């Protein structure tokens, strides 16, 4: 295993991201709805990681030398499921199991699902666990990398900063965090609720290399994620995104955090997404 997931012949990554968004919308139109806005903002980040950057093998999800992705913002679970399905970790049809009683596809990821490394949902956990994976890789002499995707609001959790300090102190250059900076949380804008700026400076002050990119530009994301890390420093990719990206009628709307789409909204959303593919 030495590469990211290959695109099927005749497919480009824009097709994949569109399909991921369609899956997300479909899940949010199900009986229990879903975390729509923060999953839509995450799509290019996950697509860049799985299809461009990470060494993974969907046919062998537990391969010992695979790169690790921890979705610390566990409320992006349906975005992760849709990406894993498109990457071939399990058949797309299994996405219909989302929120089905007795199934494993809950709103927050559960590690029984192929490709899901760890449970998440309680915020502020991924970076600490990522430290463990990164230290283990160094002990093993492995060049495995560990990627941790956080929400921006998530960085209001103190445990994020505890882990950020530990990671830089121990020089974990094989650890990369990505922040989905969509600027919204449940009760409003992040800067209104409990401000996070100056975010890049905060992380630099904690000893991290910070690369700020357009979080919906897969090439920019790939460049930032693939660039060699600075010696002895973990890397933060600060990905500026739009909550609800892809659906103009909810983009940047705080109410998109969790949505149960009505049939009319579902058709409208799918029409928008399909138009963007053609």
């Amino acid at each position, binding site marked *: 295993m030495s590469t990211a997931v290959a695109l099927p012949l005749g497919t480009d990554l824009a097709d994949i991201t569109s399909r991921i968004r369609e899956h997300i919308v479909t899940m949010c139109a199900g009986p229990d709805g879903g975390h729509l806005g923060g999953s839509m903002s995450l799509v290019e980040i996950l697509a860049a990681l799985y299809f461009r950057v990470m060494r993974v093998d969907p046919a062998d999800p537990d391969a010992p030398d695979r790169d690790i992705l921890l979705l610390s913002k566990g409320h992006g679970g349906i975005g992760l499921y849709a990406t894993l399905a498109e990457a071939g970790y399990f058949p797309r049809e299994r996405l219909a199991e989302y929120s089905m009683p007795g199934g494993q596809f809950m709103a927050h990821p559960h590690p029984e699902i192929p490709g899901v490394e760890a449970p998440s949902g309680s915020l502020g*956990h991924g970076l600490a666990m*990522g*430290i463990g994976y990164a230290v283990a890789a160094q*002990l093993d002499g492995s060049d495995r990398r560990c990627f941790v995707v956080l929400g921006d609001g998530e960085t209001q959790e103190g445990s994020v900063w505890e882990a950020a300090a*530990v990671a830089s102190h121990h020089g974990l250059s094989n650890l990369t965090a990505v922040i989905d900076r969509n600027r919204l949380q449940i009760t409003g804008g992040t800067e209104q609720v409990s401000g996070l700026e100056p975010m890049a400076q905060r992380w630099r002050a904690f000893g991290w290399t910070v690369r700020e990119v357009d979080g919906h530009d897969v090439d920019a994301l790939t460049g930032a994620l693939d660039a060699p890390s600075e010696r002895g420093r973990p890397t933060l990719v600060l990905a500026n995104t739009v909550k609800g990206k892809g659906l103009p009628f909810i983009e940047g709307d705080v109410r998109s955090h969790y949505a149960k789409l009505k049939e009319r909204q579902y058709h409208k959303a799918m029409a928008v997404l399909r138009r963007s593919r053609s």
Partner: protein
Amino acid sequence: MTAPAAAPPSSREAYRDTLTELMPGDERLVCLDSDTGLFSNVDFGSAAGRYLNVGIAEHTLMGAAAGLARSGRMPFVNTMAAFASARALDAVKVDIALTNAPVRIAATHSGVSAGHLGPTHHALEDLAVMRTLPNMTVVVPADAAQTRELVRQSLGVPGPVYLRLGRNATPDLPAGPPPCLGTVQQVRAGTDVAIVACGPYPVLAAIEAADLLHRDGISAAVLNAHTVKPLDTATILAAASVTGLVVTVEEHWAAGGLGSAVAEALSGTLPVPVHRVAMPDSFVGVAGGQRFLLDKAGITSTAISVKVRSALGRTTTSIGGERR
């Protein structure tokens, strides 16, 4: 004149020495520290690269341990029991218990062994907290020798293990066979009451109480529940079926601890009376060493024997009291 016998080490020191011995020979083992000081001046030899101090960061300690465990390692994490069971609980629950990660949580200063450090450093809730978590094994060694043995045996447990350790040297138990993790160990046989205890002073107090009761013709079995979860219910049921009366003893609040576990085990199948000797439902608001605080709280052989006599309807004492 013979030299005085060397004081036994505390269970935390016995644990430290055992882990230090084990690490060079077992590549899986990693020692993750959170500025406890327990490993200052320890020479890990060829395993030195597998010691990592994350500083005063208990959440990160637990999360990093889970990541290491999920990468094929077996981390021993080090913090005080109060911080393992309360401050870092969300990481213990989500990252370690939910993933069934083979992390060993070495929780020192348990019970009131932190003494004068005060209630922020006492852990009187940790058994209740840890035994409610699915996948968690909960172990309470009763002396240094048991600690060495149970730490070694913990390597064979596939999931997470909570090791409840003390800060101070405590007396050795009377000689007996080594403990077997996952069982309850019968220390004394008896027919009138079964005293089930865990931890150094509770087990010692139970043995002393059995001696006191023996003088009054009361036959007390003593059971050392060094593994609180999974609880060896068969041994407890067997003892209770003979005695028809159980008294539990623990350095822990009554709610949710060993007494609760024993009562849960018996209530459905053999609902005999279960009386508890445990810490009162209050924070310890005074200075004092572990023994002082336990005496004050009534975790003593006298209190146990009074409770047994009362339960048997025999208000005698063997210390000059009168039989009625």
